[in-house]
């Protein structure tokens, strides 16, 4: 259902429009956008019921023809704040050169603003088209009335309505009359055919590219307010630790330091709450950082002081060696194993990872008279409103959150703990406060990607094909952040590549065991798919190797006949986006074809590896070309990614996301590792937490999009998961060494 409302200009972007402007709020309730399979469903914003997913799309047309479209999603590099408005502009038949995009504040009226879960296009594509088509039809009707002709004789074309006689009105000339039209019903809307698209499916630069090449974009760390002071915060090195005592005499003696402020300790459930600690307030970022170094602080480390990654790894492996709760069960794996035929088993491990966006968390807040104004790099301005309101004890209506550009997000910046720090400090200090996390803060106090262990076992027939497939995982759940009682994988985590194995195997059971979180756990680009895909697609490769069969042929064989797989996700997108194994098979074939798979047989030190994974409703296959030199050094000269993402709204940005995911996935596989010792995170900056640099990343990633008119699915995340197993499968083909625990840098490949 949808409801289109014509607003007075004062209710929306009032100052931007003249009297007589046509301002429209298209309130749309897409029934498929109800429920919560995205990780944020577990969050404090998890009350994401119908209302939260009901977008209102705001647009206005001024009497001079200027079109303003409000973009309600955060820009962290996907191009979303350009691409979604362009979908609307396309249906509106607007001239993009005359469109201005306005970034929305945090406000529930826009529907869900959590730019996360690769869902911006798939949740709002239809809404944008409906809003554009509604306004277009109202403009056409307004023109018809002015001319006294039938609306059927009038057609919107590139910012004008043209009559069959050749007469024309510009959109500006029609704005006032269009505003008087009754909004059309959704069922009566006429949409453009793909052949008529002006912007959808075309490669247009983003609205920010020129600024970003000139050093002009404003990120959270660049935001400022008059009279602003700077804060740097010392936090407990152990998660949940409490402040015992501190001495700030030397800190306050640092030139530029104004005062120190104690932030209240963290209490469970931790959610998005700030960690607490001692803040140094100064007149510059540098003085605040320098003052903080002079703080002498003693902590009571609390219950997580014993957290140690080496021991925890062993505990997780112990867990997956024993039967655990089934999350999917087909046939009877135990009976098949009991037959005593050939079996194969393997264990896999993925360590904690840190998001490490290039811009560390940063926000500015100004608290005054019970209200707070915020400028922040946030993926989720409504979670900012809720978190800040709770921290300050005010109504969330009194939290005005402006969204800046984000210097990367990857899931980190949908957790607004750092914004609440700025708000709390501003209230204490009585001035606008900017909080800038150092890189060390960012890496040591992240919401870490969960460490995970997986155990897999298969029974094999005489062709090496699995007749039974058992898989067990254990990892600390994101759910524990919001309720410490959540000590097993939550449904949304199981739905990420664990309870929807696409292979056609008569006996299959997926299990998940308990694990306690000792650090903050959060979603990182592609979330639980990272470790699930690594284990499942490494194991499939192991079985193919045992059978001595070509990997592509083997994968297509175990995928079986094209069919729909129960995806284990309840509600939201299940009907619109079934898991179609035929589409998965097609990307495997495409990646094989484009990479020249058939003609590139593995050689010593040089081979291809393949993996295909379905996530965020997209089908991705990656073929990775790996070289391992005599010293065991790994190079990735080339990656071929075949992707079926449904309609690619901006193919260039879609390709860019997969190019980036190729690097991100390679970074995780090759060198990504966060460890804890004595409860504290060992790594702290890019010298200890390595991320892929230009000479380590895949040199070329070719992205091959499957032409499609299917609904657009996710693109930001799904390129990551297949990279890990594809790289390790290639290393096996090149060296005979099977990497079962990451990162690869912990292994000697030359022996």
């Amino acid at each position, binding site marked *: 259902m949808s409801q289109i409302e014509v607003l007075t200009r004062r209710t929306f972007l009032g100052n931007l429009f003249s009297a007589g402007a046509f301002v429209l709020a298209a309130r749309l309730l897409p029934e498929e956008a109800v429920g919560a399979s995205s990780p944020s469903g577990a969050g404090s914003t998890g009350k994401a019921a119908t209302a939260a997913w009901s977008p209102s799309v705001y647009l206005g047309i001024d009497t001079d023809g200027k079109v303003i479209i409000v973009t309600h999603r955060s820009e962290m590099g996907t191009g979303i704040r350009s691409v979604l408005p362009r979908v609307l502009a396309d249906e509106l038949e607007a001239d993009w050169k005359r469109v201005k995009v306005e970034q929305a504040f945090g406000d529930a009226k826009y529907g869900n603003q959590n730019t996360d879960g690769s869902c911006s296009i798939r949740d709002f594509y239809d809404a944008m088209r409906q809003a554009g088509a509604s306004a277009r039809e109202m403009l056409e009707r307004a023109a018809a009335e002015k001319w006294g002709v039938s609306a059927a004789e009038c057609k919107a074309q590139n910012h004008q309505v043209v009559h069959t006689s050749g007469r024309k009105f510009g959109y500006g000339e029609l704005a006032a009359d269009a505003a008087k039209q009754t909004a059309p019903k959704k069922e009566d809307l006429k949409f453009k055919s793909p052949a008529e698209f002006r912007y959808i499916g075309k490669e247009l630069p983003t609205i920010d*590219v020129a600024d970003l090449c000139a050093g002009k974009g404003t990120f959270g760390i660049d935001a400022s307010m008059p009279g602003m002071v700077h804060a740097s915060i010392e936090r407990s090195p152990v998660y949940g630790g409490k402040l015992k005592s501190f001495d700030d005499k030397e800190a306050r003696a640092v030139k530029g330091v104004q005062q120190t402020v104690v932030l209240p300790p963290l209490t469970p459930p931790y959610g998005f709450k700030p960690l607490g600690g001692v803040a140094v307030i100064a007149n510059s970022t540098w003085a605040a950082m320098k003052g903080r170094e002079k703080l002498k602080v003693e902590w009571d480390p609390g219950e997580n002081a014993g957290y140690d990654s080496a021991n925890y790894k062993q505990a997780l492996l112990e867990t997956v060696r024993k039967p655990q709760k089934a999350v999917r069960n087909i046939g009877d794996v135990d009976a098949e194993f009991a037959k005593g035929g050939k079996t194969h088993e393997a264990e896999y491990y993925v360590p904690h990872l840190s998001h490490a966006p290039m*811009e560390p968390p940063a926000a500015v807040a100004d608290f005054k008279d019970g209200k707070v104004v915020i400028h922040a790099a946030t993926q989720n301005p409504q979670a900012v409103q809720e978190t800040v309101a709770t921290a300050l004890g005010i109504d969330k209506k009194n939290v005005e959150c402006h969204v800046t550009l984000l210097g990367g997000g990857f899931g980190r910046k949908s957790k607004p703990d750092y914004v609440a720090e700025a708000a709390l400090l501003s209230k204490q200090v009585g001035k606008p406060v900017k909080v800038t996390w150092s890189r060390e803060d960012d890496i040591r106090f992240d919401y870490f990607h969960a460490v995970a262990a997986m155990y897999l076992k298969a029974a094999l027939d005489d062709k090496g094909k699995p007749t039974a497939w058992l898989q067990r995982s254990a990892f600390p759940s994101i759910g524990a952040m919001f309720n410490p009682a959540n000590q097993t994988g939550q449904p949304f985590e199981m739905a990420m590549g664990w309870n929807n194995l696409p292979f056609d195997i008569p006996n299959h059971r997926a299990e998940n065991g308990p694990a306690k979180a000792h650090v903050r756990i959060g979603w990182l680009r592609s979330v639980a798919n990272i470790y699930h895909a690594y284990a499942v697609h490494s194991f499939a490769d192991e079985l193919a190797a045992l059978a001595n069969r070509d990997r592509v042929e083997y994968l297509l064989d175990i995928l079986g006949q094209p069919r729909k797989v129960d995806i284990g996700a309840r509600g939201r997108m299940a009907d619109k986006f079934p898991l179609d194994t035929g589409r998965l098979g097609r990307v495997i074939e495409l990646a094989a074809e484009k990479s020249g798979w058939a003609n590139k047989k593995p050689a010593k030190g040089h081979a291809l590896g393949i993996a295909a994974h379905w996530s965020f409703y997209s089908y991705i296959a990656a073929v990775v070309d790996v070289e391992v030199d005599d010293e065991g050094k790994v190079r990735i000269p080339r990656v071929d990614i075949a992707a079926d993402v449904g309609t690619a709204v901006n193919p260039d940005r879609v390709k860019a996301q997969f190019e980036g*995911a190729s690097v991100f996935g390679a970074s995780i596989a090759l060198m990504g590792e966060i460890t804890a010792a004595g409860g504290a995170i060992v790594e702290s900056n890019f010298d200890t937490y390595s991320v892929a640099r230009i000479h380590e990343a895949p040199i070329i990633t070719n992205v091959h999009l499957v032409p499609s008119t299917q609904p657009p699915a996710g693109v930001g995340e799904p390129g990551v998961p297949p990279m890990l197993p594809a790289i390790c499968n290639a290393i096996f083909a090149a060296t005979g060494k099977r990497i079962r625990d990451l990162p690869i840098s912990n292994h000697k490949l030359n022996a």
Partner: protein
Amino acid sequence: MTFHLIQELGIGCDRRKPLSCLGDRSQCPFDLNLVALFQENQTRSLPILRWSPTLSVSPEHMIDLKVNGARHQFDGDPEMPLLWYLRDELELTGTKYGCGEGLCGACTVHLNGSAVRSCQRSMESVGGKDIVTIEGLSERASHPLQQAWRQANVPQCGYCQSGQIMRAAALLKKQPRPTDADIDAAMKGNICRCGTYQRIREAIKAAAAGPIEVKK
């Protein structure tokens, strides 16, 4: 010979007018730390040695420097990294903080023509120096690299791109036609978490091969 050495060290010396800086210290193209280095390298007789480090620091600890062609004076904490001076005091926020340890390259600027990490240069070390940030790299973002960057749609989040462009600009000044190995060597200090390396490489090559000559 001497000025050849200076070039080798990557210092932006104008070979046509090697001594023109002597009259005005703000015009001096040389890095004072490297003057000391030259002394060690038996270059004592050179006129450049008349440049004393004390020239750039006034008795009141006032530090003079040039940023994007404009002269500035700084009398704050001499230990403050240039990065925070540029960002917090001059509000030139195109130069980014990424690590504070010289590990990521997000804060790369040109110091007397060479690419340096501004987080690793204290204010006291940049007295008398000529600093160029992304904002001052070119008129209306017209540097061949900026054009190539836009053409290739390099940025994703864009946060690291100022540093990437500044590093690449210094590379092209030194090696107008860089090989892949040159690009790796020059750019490996600049992290991009979005993973735009492929397009960075493409854009550097496009700018290097482009019709617009890279000005030295």
